[in-house]
Structures are given as structure tokens and as C-alpha cells.
């Protein structure tokens, strides 16, 4: 009789544990998915901003045709990207083109004084930040989720219900890895 009660209690505890961990895992997975969609929203926003920016800047920067072409090309590639790998590569290139453009802007004081351009620039700066921060938060969530899945005792439940590891979102930025060249 007592043995039966002990077994029943242990079983009940185990079931409660499984339910608790399962719900935590589901919540974490939803958070990961939500963070992922945040990145998407911000990338779309960047794509929408760029034509406006180019339109405003064109009149002032007649000699920078190459920069604009680079941006436009990178944008259409990023928008046409199908897979995650493609997207992260194209977005990296677009980010690079944008930061190059913002550096060139420093040489055009008239443009920098333009009210319209100033507000576009703030939006662009903020969008770039939001992309970076949403990537950061996505990677944080993925790290936490992956830890939970691999660590004891939650890994038992994760294996029971086949929760899979998630990948980090790394943007390939060639410039960040390049060693700066010094010439004399």
C-alpha cells in the first residue's frame, strides 16, 4: 500500500516537472520566434527608408553616383533574398554601403544642414541601431533557449518533445573582419 503511494507521488511529481519545463520551453521558443520577426520588421524599414534618402541626397551629391548605385544594388539584392544565409549576406553588404554613404555625407555641409535630410538621417541611424539591437536580443534568446535544451534536467523534456537547437544570426560584414591597411 505505502509502496503504491510512493510510486504515485513520484509519478505525479515527474508529470508536474515535465509540464512545467515543457511550458517554459514553449514560452522561450515563442520569444525566440518573436525576436526573429523583430529583425525582419527592422530590415523592411531599412529597405523603405533608402529610396527617400537617396532622393533627398541626390541633388546635393552629384559626384557620388557610384555610392548611390552601390546602395540601390545592395538594397534590391537584400529585398530579393530567399534564404536566411542569402539574406544575412545581402544585409551585411547593404549595411556596409550605408555606413560608407554616411561617411561621405560628412563632406557635404549643405546636405547636412537640410532639415529633411537630418530627420531621415536620424531615422536611418535609429533603424541601423534597431537592427543591431534586435539581432543582439535574438542571439541572447537563442543562447538561453539552447542552454535550456542542452542542460540537465530540462534536456530530458526537450528530448521527449524534440525541441531542436536554434542558430545564431550572424551578419557577414567583410569590413569588420578586414585588417586595416596602413600605408606611408
Amino acid at each position: 500500500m505505502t509502496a503504491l503511494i510512493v510510486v504515485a507521488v513520484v509519478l505525479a511529481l515527474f508529470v508536474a516537472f515535465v509540464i512545467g519545463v515543457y511550458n517554459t520551453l514553449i514560452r522561450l521558443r515563442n520569444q525566440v520566434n518573436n525576436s526573429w520577426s523583430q529583425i525582419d520588421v527592422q530590415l523592411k524599414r531599412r529597405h523603405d527608408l533608402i529610396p527617400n534618402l537617396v532622393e533627398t541626397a541626390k541633388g546635393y551629391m552629384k559626384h557620388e553616383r557610384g555610392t548611390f548605385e552601390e546602395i540601390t544594388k545592395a538594397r534590391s539584392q537584400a529585398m530579393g533574398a530567399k534564404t536566411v544565409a542569402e539574406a544575412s549576406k545581402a544585409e551585411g553588404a547593404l549595411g556596409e554601403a550605408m555606413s560608407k554613404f554616411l561617411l561621405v555625407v560628412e563632406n557635404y555641409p549643405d546636405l547636412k544642414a537640410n532639415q529633411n535630410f537630418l530627420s531621415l538621417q536620424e531615422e536611418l541611424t535609429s533603424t541601423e541601431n534597431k537592427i543591431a539591437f534586435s539581432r543582439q536580443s535574438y542571439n541572447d534568446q537563442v543562447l538561453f533557449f539552447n542552454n535550456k535544451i542542452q542542460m540537465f534536467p530540462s534536456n530530458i523534456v526537450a528530448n521527449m518533445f524534440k525541441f531542436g537547437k536554434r542558430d545564431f544570426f550572424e551578419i557577414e560584414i567583410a569590413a569588420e573582419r578586414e585588417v586595416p591597411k596602413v600605408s606611408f
Partner: protein
Amino acid sequence: MWELIRANKRNSIVLIVLMAVVLLLLGFVIGLGFFGSEGGFFGLIIASVIWLILTLVSFSSGDQIFLAASNAKAITHDDYPQLFNIVEEMKIAASLPAMPKVYIIPDSAPNAFATGRSPETASVAVTAGLLGRLNRDELQGVIAHEISHILHRDILFVTVAGIMLGSILLLSQVFLRGMFYSSMGSRRRFSGGGKGGGQAAIFMLIIAIIAAILAPIMAQLLYFALSRRREYLADAGGARLTRYPEGLASALEKIANDPSPQLASVNKVTAPMYIVNPFKKKGQMKLSDLTSTHPPISERVRILRSMSHGASFKDYSDAFTNVTKNKTVVPAMALTKEDIALRQASAEAKKKQRAEYQMRQVGDIMRSVNQFVFLTCLCGLKLKIPPNFKANKVQCPRCKRILDLPKK
């Protein structure tokens, strides 16, 4: 991160239960002191009624009362895009479930606070003085600190604990004043109460007076000790969100060295909500360490500046023990190893500030929030007309043209 939130929640509950016990005990003792042995329950009931009412009010509209008391005005993206964008950036970094409402306080003292019941219904308010003085990276640091308060659930804690402290203060004040007046009137009730119970009644009364004096002090020390700890933790959280501790450090430095007069509309209960102590000190002694709501700014800055390896809680905790030589404030659960690299300053921070232009811009925002009408004269002068200006024509002070005001 999540471990920290859990630890914080538990601490909040412990503190709130402790304060509730203090409050109810105080009510009980005061009741005993006032009305004799049957009065204990009466006091208990009065204390719980006061507490219940204040708690209900603070839950339903505590943040609104606080925002209104500090004269904060809600803004939208169009009023001040940069501030709004920065709040949104930090909301994304912290993955909050909803965008906090953004407020500006028309006050030249640089300061900021966050309030609300939950991360879903939070608000962030900054003063105009803060907007006028900080660059983008610094403002981001301050907002990150505030968003960390929201993320760590400190906003609810401050509201509930603050209300509890308020009720304890109120109860003891009422009792002590009541004592004072009744002792001026008839003393008979206390001295000759029952048959031979006089001694015990006086004894109870003395205990009640001591309790009424000590309880608020105890509650305040408890509250302040925890809020100091939470300031450090919000600094750590802010550094972790931005990956750039220098932004917050240099913002704190600017705020500390600011000569503006102290913030209007602030009191003992609300002071812990602000990013730096809104009370300007005058000739403080060492005792202030116990009673102050905030850690010393210079120390906070030094901790943030010595985080040279990374931006995780572990890095902050190491920097903290290095600088203060004290035990760490970060709960052990949150000290997991994380590899979080620092980032560089943004391009704008490296540029020299155009302080005067920035100040004027903030002034214009305050005016447009306050329904000022802007009118540009043909001679180029910008007229800023207050909402209580009744006439429908105005003369330009430079070129003497008569201008029509737009109809409202």
C-alpha cells in the same frame, strides 16, 4: 538575465511582506496604546484599510498620479524623433512586450525615471534639461538604465513599497499628532483607564509611541537599502543592453556636474524612482550612506568605466568588487558566464556638441507640446506664441509687420 529578474521578484515579495508586517504591527500597537486591550484589533483593521485603499489606488493609477504630479507631458514620435527612437531601440534590445509611453518633464534639472505596473504598461519620463545636455549615446545609456528598471520589475516594486512606506508614515504621523493633541486636552483617559490597569496602559502607550517613531525609520532604511542595490543593478542592465557602459558613465557625470536648481515636484517616497537622487545635497556627512536612496554617482561612474572586458553582469560584478571592495550586489544566480563584447562609440558622440542649438530645440519641443503656435515672419524671425495669447493679430518685433494668427 532571467535569473536576475526572478531573484529580484523574490526580493520584492520579501520586502513587501516585511513592510506589511511592520504596518500591521504598528496598527496593532497603536490601537492597544490608544484604546486599551480591545483596541489592538481595531488598530489592525484601520491599518489594513488604509493599506488596502492606498494599494488599490496605486495599482489602478499610481503611475498616472506620479506622472501628473511631476507635470510630465506625453509625446509622440513626431514631437521628438530621437528620444522616441532611442526608447524603441532599448525596448527592442530588452525585448519588452510593448513600447513604453514616452514623457517629457518641463524642468531644467537633468533627470529621468520609469514607472508603471508591468512591462506592458510602463512609462519612461525624461526632463527637458536631460535632453538638452546629453548626446545620443549618453541619452541611450540613461534610457537603457530606465528600461532595465522596467525589465527587472523595479517599477512595480517601487510603487508598491513606496505606497506601503507612505501608509506607515501616515499612520505614525496621525498617531503622534493625535497623542500630542489629546495630551493637551484630557489626560484622564490614559492615566486612570481601568481598575488597576493604569500601569499596563501607560506601558502600552510608551511602546506604541516608540513603535510609531521607529517603524517609519526602519521601513525607510529597508526601502532605501534595496533601492540603492537596484540602482547598481539597473546600471549593470543598462550597460548590458547598450554594450556601451561609457555612454551611461558620461551621462551620469554630466548630470552630477550640472548646476541647475533641484527638480521641483519630488518627495521622499518618489525620490528612489529617479536615475540620480533628485535632492541636491548640502553639507552631507557619512550618515548619508545609510539614508540616501542612491549610491554615490562618482562610484557608479568608476564602476562603469572599469568594465573593460565586456558588458555582462559578471563583468559589472567584477568591476563593482574592484572599485568598492564590497561584496557584489549582483545575485549569484545571474553570474553565469556570458561573452558580451563592448562596442565602439557611435559617430555622433565623437562630434562636438552644438549645445546652444540643442537647448533651443528642446525648448521648442516643450512649447509645441504645450500648444504654443509657431509663426515665421517674412523677415525670417520665428515667433513663438503662448496658448493664452488672445488677440488674433501680432506685431513682429523686428520688422514691425502685422501678422495674422492662424485660427485654432
